[in-house]
């Protein structure tokens, strides 16, 4: 219910905004009244103002007000809801004296805009005929005898304490003392109790009447009002007087009073006059002491009173995930129960706790306010595990002992199990949309036999690993070195041979020339052959074993020796062979062949040299 009201209260301003443009603010009052007449002055506004600035009621006495009343009407037409709110500020005023009086405009502020009401002019005429049996004495015209004296009728306000602590309960009792008969009374003006939190604790039913002796006079005393007050700030606080309107039976004046009558304060047969009059109580000044600052516990929230107790009950200590547990904390004692705040408890995270349901059980008795206030929490654990609900610490100040007293509830431990595996599914879980819908179960185990390698064995950084790294590198290095050596070796002999080929050939030719001169034919040809083939073998780096005309021709081609040169070389070889085995004169031929061979070698040497230089 409270919640609904709250929502309504929040919605109200929103709705109001819709009509903000056409705010109407009117004042209404009767135009003609009589002196002493009471009447209503109403200010009506069709919006919810943030501020109301009342006018000055000059020439009138304000008896009560402003009393605010709200009326809300809701209209539903074709499914469309329209709502209008009217707020009325009502004053009850009394005309004091004759004349024309104007109540000036009042102001309201709606959404930051100020609206003024119309001023109202009231014509106050002479006293009207009072209602039968009643006399309203007009001020000034009143005769002393027509009013009960302050000794005969007065109200006395008494307080249980004159210098209470801030927040301490103080009982104010208003007693009416009378020696005249009071026909009826009504409370006219209740003090505003500024600086206090007040609660009326007047006993219901007819007030008890007792008698009391004051200054030798017997009074009848009735308690008319009793209020529990809780000072909200320290310092000097004054309580305004209470005003009561009483109808008093004054003893008849025209009849001579008999002793008998006097004694009884008026006989029932006395037709005397009924006078209506306003009586005021005394005002009370209190000196409110602040609460001692030293040794004030941190948990102190301003509660002052006595005999406070806290009690906590938990309905379950073992439960499943997402089940609800119920924690009820009850604070009871003598003091202002309505001012007790919601307990501050550090609930563990993952325990979803809803705002507590507050229920009051408050008793008002003549001795003050007492009772209990309960807070009922509903808690839902969202994960499994142990949840520790810390103790609730309640601290209050006891004025009678002048100390702070701390009460504490026990610590609760809730064991939450997750048998159904629900922990992952509550609604307040973060949305994990990255999970693919079909990918929600794990895959099956691996059943193939595994290699049962003992722990700590690993190929990486093992001796074998290093061996396999180092060995190829070493092998490669060895191979490289060996190969290099071989190449160097081979290239050196070849170079030598190539370089010395011509020299060797010339040497052989020289020998051949010797044989030519000695005319030893076979030796000559042998030497020529050797010179030619040997030269080729050395120069072209072809082993003698595979040397023949074809390989020579190929080698010449590879060395890019001109065709005619290679041809003449081969011709020389052919001639040599031919001459050797041909019959006939040999000396000329031998000489010719010698020169031919020499020429061929020289030209080839030249050609190859020129090519080498070019390169």
């Amino acid at each position, binding site marked *: 219910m409270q919640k609904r009201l709250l929502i309504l209260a929040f919605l109200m301003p929103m709705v109001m905004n819709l009509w903000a443009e056409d705010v109407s603010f009117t004042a209404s009052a009767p135009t003609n009244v009589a002196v002493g007449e009471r009447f209503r002055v109403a200010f009506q506004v069709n919006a919810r103002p943030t501020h109301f600035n009342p006018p000055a009621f000059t020439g009138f006495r304000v008896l009560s007000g402003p009393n605010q009343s709200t009326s809300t009407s809701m209209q539903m037409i074709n499914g469309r809801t329209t709502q209008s709110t009217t707020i009325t500020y009502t004053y009850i005023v009394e005309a004091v004296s004759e004349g024309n009086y104007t109540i000036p405009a009042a102001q309201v502020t709606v959404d930051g805009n100020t609206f003024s009401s119309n001023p109202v002019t009231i014509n106050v005429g002479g006293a009207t005929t009072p209602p039968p049996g009643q006399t309203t004495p007009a001020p000034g015209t009143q005769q002393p005898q027509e009013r009960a004296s302050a000794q005969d009728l007065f109200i006395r306000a008494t307080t249980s304490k004159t210098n209470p602590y801030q927040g301490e309960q103080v009982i104010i009792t208003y007693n009416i003392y009378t020696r005249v008969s009071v026909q009826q009374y009504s409370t006219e003006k209740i003090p505003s109790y500024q600086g206090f939190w007040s609660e009326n604790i007047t006993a219901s039913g007819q007030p008890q009447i007792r008698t009391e002796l004051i200054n030798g006079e017997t009074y009848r005393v009735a308690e008319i009002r009793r209020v529990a007050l809780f000072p909200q700030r320290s310092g000097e606080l004054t309580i305004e007087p209470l005003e009561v309107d009483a109808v008093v039976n004054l003893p008849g004046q025209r009849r001579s009073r008999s002793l008998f009558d006097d004694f009884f304060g008026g006989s029932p047969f006395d037709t005397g006059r009924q006078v209506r009059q306003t009586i005021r109580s005394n005002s009370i000044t209190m000196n409110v002491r602040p609460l001692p600052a030293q040794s004030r516990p941190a948990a102190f929230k301003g509660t002052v009173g006595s005999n406070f107790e806290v009690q906590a009950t938990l309905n379950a200590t073992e439960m499943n995930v997402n089940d609800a547990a119920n924690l009820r904390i009850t604070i009871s004692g003598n003091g202002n129960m309505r001012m007790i705040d919601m307990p501050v408890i550090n609930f*563990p*995270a*993952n325990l979803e706790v809803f705002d507590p349901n507050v229920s009051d059980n408050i008793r008002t008795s003549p001795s003050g306010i007492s009772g209990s206030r309960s807070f009922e929490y509903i808690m839902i654990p969202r*994960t*499994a*595990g142990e949840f520790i609900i810390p103790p609730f610490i309640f601290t209050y100040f006891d004025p009678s002992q002048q100390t702070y007293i701390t009460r504490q509830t026990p610590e609760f431990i809730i064991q939450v199990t*997750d048998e159904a*595996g629900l*922990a*992952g599914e509550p609604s307040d*879980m*973060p949305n*994990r949309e*990255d*999970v693919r819908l079909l*990918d*929600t*179960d*794990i*895959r*099956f*185990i*691996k*059943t*193939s*036999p*595994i*290699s*049962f*390698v*003992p*722990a*700590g064995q*690993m*190929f*990486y*950084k093992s001796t074998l*690993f290093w061996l*396999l*790294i180092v060995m*190829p*590198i070493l*092998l*490669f290095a060895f*191979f*490289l070195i060996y*190969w290099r050596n071989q190449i160097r070796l081979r290239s050196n002999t070849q170079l030598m041979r190539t370089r010395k080929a011509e020299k060797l050939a010339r040497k052989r030719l020289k020998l051949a020339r010797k044989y030519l001169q000695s005319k030893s034919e076979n030796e000559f040809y042998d030497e020529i052959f050797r010179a030619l083939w040997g030269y080729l073998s050395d120069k072209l780096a072809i082993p003698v074993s595979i040397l023949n005309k074809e390989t020579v021709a190929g080698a010449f081609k590879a060395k890019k020796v001109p065709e005619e040169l290679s041809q003449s070389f081969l011709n020389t070889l052919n001639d040599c062979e031919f001459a050797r085995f041909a019959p006939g004169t040999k000396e000329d031929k031998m000489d010719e062949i010698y020169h031919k061979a020499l020429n061929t070698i020289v030209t080839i040497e030249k050609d190859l040299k020129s090519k080498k230089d070019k390169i």
Partner: protein
Amino acid sequence: MKKVVFIILVVFTLGVKAQTPREIWFEANQAYQRSEYTYAIELFEQLQQMDIVAAELYYNLGNAYFRNNHLGKAILNYERALRRNPADDNIRHNLRIANNRTIDNVEQRAQLFYERWWRNTYMLQSVNGWAIWGIVALCLFLAITAIYLFSRTIGIKKTAFYFSLLLLTLTIFSLIFAQKQYNRLNNTSEAIIMSPRVTAKSSPSAQSPDLFLVHEGTKVFIRSSLGDWYEINLANGNVGWIKRETAEII
């Protein structure tokens, strides 16, 4: 009923003592298939006590824990399996499923594309895999280099040169990755939360203020330890102290 199961388990355990690892492995897998997960867990752990380390063993144990709703233990074992066999699709899949069941959705620091590529590449092979890759690539590199050095044909020489460069790169990276995986395997700074709920404190004492809450299965990084406490940080950068027994190092 529970008592009966317990007795049966004890009997089984006693009977199993004399078996070889291969038989225990078979028996454990059978138990898993019969949905006797508690028994399967017991057998798998028995294998672990025999100093047997294998990605498959961790994987199956993780599965058994998962089926028994022990999310933290399941994730721990999947992580251990993945360290030994980072390329295995099944392990990755199950770890992802298990991680999605955790309560904490720790926001991962966004990785840049090259960080992702780097990680995806070195996660292709385990430490031994990369070691073998490195050795093979090294041998090939040397062979191709020899061809480059001794070939007389320009075409072959050119091709061999590029191939040898490629193989050298492959060798170096394989060995870097092997070292990376080796470090991961011996990394003791990662842990999995084991308790259903752990409150991280601002300092290593139970009285210090609560900083944040982590739940079972969340991976945390251990920065330092002091007495009974670990200083952890989460993937999103939060730092706090937790009790040592609430987490287990991967």
